[in-house]
């Protein structure tokens, strides 16, 4: 990896890290623009495929940047891109979290924790609905989600059993 590429990777992903307010997906368009149009590391079609791979693989979907860095400059580029994407935002989060945790017991802290709990629950339910809308296309999938939701709410069954069963059902073409 030459120094120029290393600097480009640090600059692009370090900036994207700090701008990724609301989660990694908010800066995907910017990363796509730079990686494809500005630096010509890969084509738009390749970028789309890498996005799908990062979504499907375990772990945070922002590991898309690992793949982009890999295409730009091999393994070293992949690691550099990953660190550049995590570190700047991570420092901010750590400092804010320290402050938040140290204020435990303060009235504004209690108010935020209690007041934002219903909001957070609404957001969790909303994210389930949004993912369902983009990934579920068949009645069998909806039925599977409904049945699995009931089982998870009513029992203490380890979700991994359901994940394995659902993966098998998908593999067999049942959903």
């Amino acid at each position, binding site marked *: 990896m030459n120094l120029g590429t290393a600097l480009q990777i640090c600059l692009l992903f370090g900036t994207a890290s700090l701008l990724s307010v609301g989660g990694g997906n908010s800066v995907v368009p910017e990363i796509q623009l730079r990686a494809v149009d500005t630096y010509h590391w890969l084509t738009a079609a390749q970028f789309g495929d890498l996005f799908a791979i990062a979504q499907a693989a375990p772990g945070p979907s922002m590991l898309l940047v690992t793949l982009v860095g890999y295409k730009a400059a091999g393994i070293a580029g992949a690691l550099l891109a990953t660190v550049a994407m995590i570190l700047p935002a991570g420092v901010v989060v750590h400092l*804010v979290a320290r402050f938040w945790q140290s204020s435990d017991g303060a009235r504004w802290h209690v108010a935020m924790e209690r007041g934002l709990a219903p909001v957070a629950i609404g957001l969790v339910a909303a994210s389930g609905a949004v993912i369902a809308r983009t990934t579920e296309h068949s009645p069998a999938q909806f039925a599977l989600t409904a049945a699995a939701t009931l089982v998870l709410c009513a029992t203490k069954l380890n979700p991994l059993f359901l994940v394995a069963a659902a993966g098998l059902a998908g593999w067999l073409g049942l959903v």
Partner: protein
Amino acid sequence: MNRGGTAEVSLARLAATFCQVALASFGGGLSAWSRKVVVEDRGWMTDEEFLSAMTLCRVLPGANQVNLAIYVGGKLRGVRGAAAAVVGLTGVPVLIVLVLGYLYFRNGSVPATQSILRGITAVAVAMTFAMAYKTGAKALRSLPAWALCAVSFLLSAVFRVPLPVMLAIVAPVALWWAWPARSDRPPASRLP
């Protein structure tokens, strides 16, 4: 004692815990897995703290789940804990995407996983709904709480309002409602 009462947790255990979260969430449901492991299995946090941490992590820059790992790791073991949690969460997944990326650029495609993912994603969505149910059973015990939850859901899922805008609308009402001095509710529960 800290909330979620925690003796010293080793850095290795932190990393292993978040590695487990990352690997279990193949196909999605990372938030739900984080809650299951951190709150239910390990008892490192209460549901209340987890929910507020999650909201904090969504508002701040960075991937939500990486931020949550930093929050939990930092709470238990400071900077080193945060680093251990992030390495645990991302280490193995980085290796996996690198292998997939290598295969993709060599073959022009990746091993067919689409059909398996169709099933798994449906369960990941179910885990997310079940998480809303489990945390809601504890936190939604009054009409205003239900109203805040419903409005947040509608703004986010139906009207697709961006998170900062949504919080600017909902948070002031939520804070006014929850401010300890003006209500007869006891201060935040300290139960584990």
